[in-house]
């Protein structure tokens, strides 16, 4: 299969542009980020539904909230590293507290800007956004799931944070028949495997590679594509964990307050199992390409498989 060249951010633009043809209330806002967000085509096609605020992330989110309070479906896109923390209070008060229909798109999330340093890494966005009540958090894994997620989010009127990476990621799902149900993890494999791997966003593809490697070594693994970090599909975690010898979570995020923290809460409370949370470190992330950074921290297929094996050894399996 040829490598996919379309990044998830492009899938967002395509889905919004398709919907905007029939819905004049869709408004897209950027903070000098339309190119980075792959939203130039939207701005060109729908100038009356596009708002450029310049390099001002606080303004971006507050203006989006004001538009939303007057009936607009506001989508505010800016690099995840900036929009998730520079405009954190705007997300908390103007979007969440006021219950405004603002979808905040964090582009180039995680270590997408690998070589640009800590200022451009967003390893805190899941924790930050998840801690806000009435704010949902989604990290889609591939372009088809991204498309379906955007369609689902267009159909509701509550705030949400959506993180995607900068680079194209391999297709996981088919263009037609992507198995998407809002708020439900996508299962790869069955409950009853040796190990349950819960991954989100761009970590789903390497988790699936790890599953393949483990299978070659006689180890069964199920992978949950947990694109919905908040609200988490807790029942899927419990179902997968209960029937497994160990649980491994994988995320492109700091070790605090992200997917691993939530999975640990759910597993600890409802079905205690040996568990490990794979993540970026609690330290400035090493600079390099995304692939180099992932390999460095064991977040590639081989690294995830190695962690799974170690965990199963500790579990006495």
């Amino acid at each position, binding site marked *: 299969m040829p490598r996919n060249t379309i990044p998830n951010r492009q899938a967002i633009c395509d889905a919004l542009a398709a919907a905007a043809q029939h819905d004049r209330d869709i*408004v897209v806002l950027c903070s000098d980020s339309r190119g980075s967000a792959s939203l130039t085509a939207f701005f060109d096609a729908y100038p*009356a*539904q596009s*708002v450029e*605020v*310049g390099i*001002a992330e*606080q*303004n971006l989110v*507050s*203006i*989006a*909230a*004001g*538009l*939303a*309070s*007057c*009936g*607009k479906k*506001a989508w505010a896109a800016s690099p995840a590293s900036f929009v998730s923390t520079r405009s954190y*209070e*705007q997300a908390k*008060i*103007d979007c969440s*507290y*006021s*219950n405004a229909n603002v979808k905040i798109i964090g582009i180039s999330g995680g270590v997408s800007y690998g070589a640009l340093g800590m200022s451009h890494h967003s390893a805190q966005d899941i924790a930050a956004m998840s801690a806000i009540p009435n704010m949902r958090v989604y990290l889609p894994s591939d372009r088809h799931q991204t498309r379906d997620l955007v369609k689902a989010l267009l159909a509701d009127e509550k705030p949400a944070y959506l993180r995607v990476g900068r680079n194209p990621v391999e297709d996981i799902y088919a263009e037609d028949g992507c198995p998407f149900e809002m708020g439900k993890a996508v299962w790869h494999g069955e409950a009853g495997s040796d190990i349950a791997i819960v991954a989100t966003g761009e970590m789903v593809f390497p988790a699936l590679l790890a599953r393949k490697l483990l299978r070659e070594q006689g180890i069964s693994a199920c992978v949950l594509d947990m694109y919905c970090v908040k609200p988490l599909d807790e029942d899927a975690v419990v179902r997968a964990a209960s029937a497994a010898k160990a649980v491994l979570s994988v995320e492109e995020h700091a070790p605090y307050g992200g997917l691993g923290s939530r999975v640990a809460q759910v597993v600890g409370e409802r079905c205690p199992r040996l568990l490990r949370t794979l993540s970026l470190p609690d330290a400035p992330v090493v600079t390099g390409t995304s692939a180099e950074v992932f390999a460095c921290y064991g977040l590639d297929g081989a690294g995830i498989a190695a962690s799974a094996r170690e965990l199963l050894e500790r579990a006495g399996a």
Partner: protein
Amino acid sequence: MGKKPSLEELEILRWDLRRDCVDIIMAGGGGHIGGDMSVIDALAVLYARHLDIAPEAADDPDRDRFVLSKGHAMEAYYAVLCRRGFLDLADVKARFSRFGSPYIGHPNNKLAGIEANSGSLGHGLPVSVGMALAAKMDGRSYRVYTMLGDGELAEGSVWEGFMAGSNFGLDNLCAMVDRNYLQISGSTEDVMAQDPLADRIASFGWKVLAADGHDLAAIDRALDEAASVKGKPCAIILNTIKGSGSSVMENKASWHHHLPTAQEYEQIIADLSAHRKAALNA
């Protein structure tokens, strides 16, 4: 909009609103009384004579919008919303600041008539920019008003809002600044100087007006003039006195947030009654 109350009627109402506001604060055990008093005359004029809103049409997409950016002046806002028929004064007084009450110390948009939550400063103007922009996009004629405090102007996000307001040519947007020159730590000019304020805002591309914030006719004229400005948004600097209405609290930074003692309360009420009586006899 039905028949507007006259300025003569408001000359009396302003003292009743202050009394309602002070009573709400007494009932709740505290409030931002100083800023309430400096802003209450402007809110009275705005709500009585300029905002095209009605409690029975609170969701009308063509209604005017108001955002209290200096959210801590909430008790004054309660008093005005009650008089305008959005809220019930007895209910507000009975429950303000009580456990689980919706009547909290800052705007809560779950209450009728309140468009956006605030409390943290520097949010109201950018949110109002979004509201005004939505009107332009939809070809609607409603206007958007916001009230900022002068201490609030130290928040950088306010200036992002000023920048965007003129960038988008939002002549349906009016930002009022409660210029009482006091904030919790003292004079605004000592804490973080804002003057020359009119020049600063004008340099961001806004039309800037000034009015005595306790002269109802002057406020009324300024709001009329603001509505006539074309092509750019308008700011009105309201020169006000923190704690206006009683010598007990006028121009005293320590009254930023304060619960009057019984003796202070008595004096405030006496002062407000004297003002009301003078207005009746005028």
